[in-house]
């Protein structure tokens, strides 16, 4: 939770949640309550003071003192502790909305793909609790169990033990190399898992697709770089000065799935029926030609000419395989 929730509905959720917390924890120090909700002590104190002005229109249809929350002001001023002395209507935490419960349940199902996070039985019990704790039936949002990749288990173990891993990896330019890597974070986008780590071969931070690693082993060598020492960016693919800029024509229907190649300042210029023109950054033609060939009819490279040629040659080499096969058959 950010210190100052940007949305009114988040601030309402906070008010509805902090009151039962304070009732359950009489005399809690301001600093402790603040830390629990991710606020500064000054912000927490301001929130507590504001709650004391609120309540219900009582028997007289006006807000009398007995109808408002109140606290022990001396305890707050002298000891920095919060005691609610007059409480109004609510005692317990609110239920989850149907969508909140659905989002949590689907998130838990997704975690089953990570080996060792929780056993199936514990998750099933937790999911049942969430369904019961929702104010309406959660909409059915589900995630398949995913592909249990043995490599994920090895990387997870190395991360936990703080040791270096080694694996063979095809570089973006297509060369196979043995990479010694200090694991920093296992990160995923849907069913694709990446290891973010410090590569001793490149002496820099690198991302690796777990399903591209070969001959993966956890070594005995302790990792020199650890997750708490290196701050990783929130985005997986940071633009680099070496990137190639390529102009493309993209089907509008394919834009959502293409978001990771676009940046906030990408211009999408309408270009005829159902298409836009834009430019994207790629590390090398090696990855570009694969991307374009997997999106036939949806994505076309417009410029530069050498990028067009790389894609055309790649596709033509693919077609050639079938021509040869036919010739052999005949």
């Amino acid at each position, binding site marked *: 939770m950010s210190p100052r929730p940007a949305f009114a509905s988040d601030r309402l959720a906070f008010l509805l949640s902090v009151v039962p917390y304070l009732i359950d924890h009489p005399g809690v120090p301001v600093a402790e309550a603040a830390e629990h909700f991710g606020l500064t002590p000054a912000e927490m104190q301001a929130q507590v003071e*504001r709650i004391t002005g609120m309540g219900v229109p009582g028997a007289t249809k006006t807000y009398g003192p007995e109808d408002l929350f109140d606290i022990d002001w001396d305890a707050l001023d002298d000891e920095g502790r919060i005691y609610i002395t007059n409480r*109004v209507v609510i005692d317990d935490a609110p239920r*989850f909305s149907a969508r909140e419960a659905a989002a949590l349940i689907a*998130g838990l199902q997704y975690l089953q793909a990570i080996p060792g996070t929780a056993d199936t039985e*514990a998750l099933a019990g937790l999911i049942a609790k969430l369904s019961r704790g929702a104010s309406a039936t959660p909409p059915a949002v589900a995630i398949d169990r995913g592909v249990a*990749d043995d490599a994920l288990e090895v990387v997870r173990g190395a991360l936990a033990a703080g040791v270096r891993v080694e694996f063979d990896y095809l570089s973006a330019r297509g060369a196979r190399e043995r990479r010694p890597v200090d694991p920093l974070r296992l990160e995923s986008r849907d069913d694709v898992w990446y290891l973010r780590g410090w590569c001793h071969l490149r002496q820099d931070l690198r991302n690796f697709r777990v399903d591209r690693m070969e001959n993966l082993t956890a070594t005995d060598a302790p990792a020199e770089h650890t997750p708490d020492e290196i701050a990783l960016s929130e985005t997986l693919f940071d633009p680099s000065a070496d990137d190639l800029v390529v102009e493309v024509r993209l089907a509008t229907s394919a834009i959502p799935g293409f978001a990771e190649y676009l940046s906030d300042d990408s211009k999408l210029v309408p270009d005829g029926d159902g298409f836009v023109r834009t430019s994207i950054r790629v590390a090398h033609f090696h990855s570009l030609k694969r991307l374009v060939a997997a999106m036939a009819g949806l994505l076309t490279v417009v410029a530069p000419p050498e990028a067009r040629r790389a894609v*055309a040659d790649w*596709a033509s080499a693919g077609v050639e395989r079938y021509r040869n096969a036919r010739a052999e058959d005949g």
Partner: protein
Amino acid sequence: MPRIVPPEERQFALVLALLATEQGLTKEQILSTVDGYHQKYVPNGDNANLERQFERDKDTLRELGVPLETVDAPGQPGNNQLQSYRVSKGDYELPGDIAFTPTELSLLQLAGTVWREGSLSGDMRRAMIKLRAAGVEPDGPMLGYAPRLKQLEPAFGPLTQAIERREAVSFPYLRPGRTVARTHTIKPLALFQFRGRWLFMGLDYADHKLTFLLSRIVGEVTFTRERFEPPPGDHSAEALRELEHLWQRNTATVAVEPGSDAAIRLARRYGGTADGRLLVVHYSDLSLLADELAGYGPEVTVLEPDHLKQAVVSRLEATEWAHRDADAAAGGAA
């Protein structure tokens, strides 16, 4: 001058007032007495703005899962001026026997990070705030993981809403190989991710079950206002089971270039088997597999089935045709 009440304080006062009332409060009573409204209320005057604000606040409360009840006045069904509103405490509060252990809480927090992007991120933020009400501290955050679900398709938000509201929706859908989208009207039952793709399942006008890929919904999802009663059952679990069967049943045989990207990744594909250069791969959707295989270019050749082979060849030919320049081709021939 009366003090300006921030929206969350007005909404908080509304929740408290609705929880406190046994028989319910009419709109008139709410606007004239509840903090945040009564300051702007004009007795016997025009309160249209205030009424609109009340409508928006009701939406916020529902979004947060506050179970708002409407009670018709005796003998006046449907008269919303006389309708009254209340919130039952039992339906509002988390049942007393539901508590989370520190281990469960750290799992839930990790599950929460999964939805950092997209249309459920707000719901997840609020769920995380509510989880703190119990005062349980998670037993150590799970460092070293950043699992994320992308759900980038714009249809995701409206579809979850439609499932929750049990309302039929219409949307344009482009089947692979077609150039013109067809509009479908579907009663949505379940939304699910299978092998990294978002799909949804629902009933058509004849109550036949149909499954759609979200990425092939090429336009806006519109609500039809037609409500329906879903048949009983765990539809998403059932749909996932059916897709799993389909995946097991459908196989293709391909030859891969040893040591290539295709060889490494296709050999890891779930459920497949390898025999030297020959791999058997499973799939649930032939055109998705054809897209993926076309991306590998000359690193993979489809041996069977025949329609997959044709689908890959036609994709590669289309890509070559779209990227081969006349002068380059001439130069190549010379």
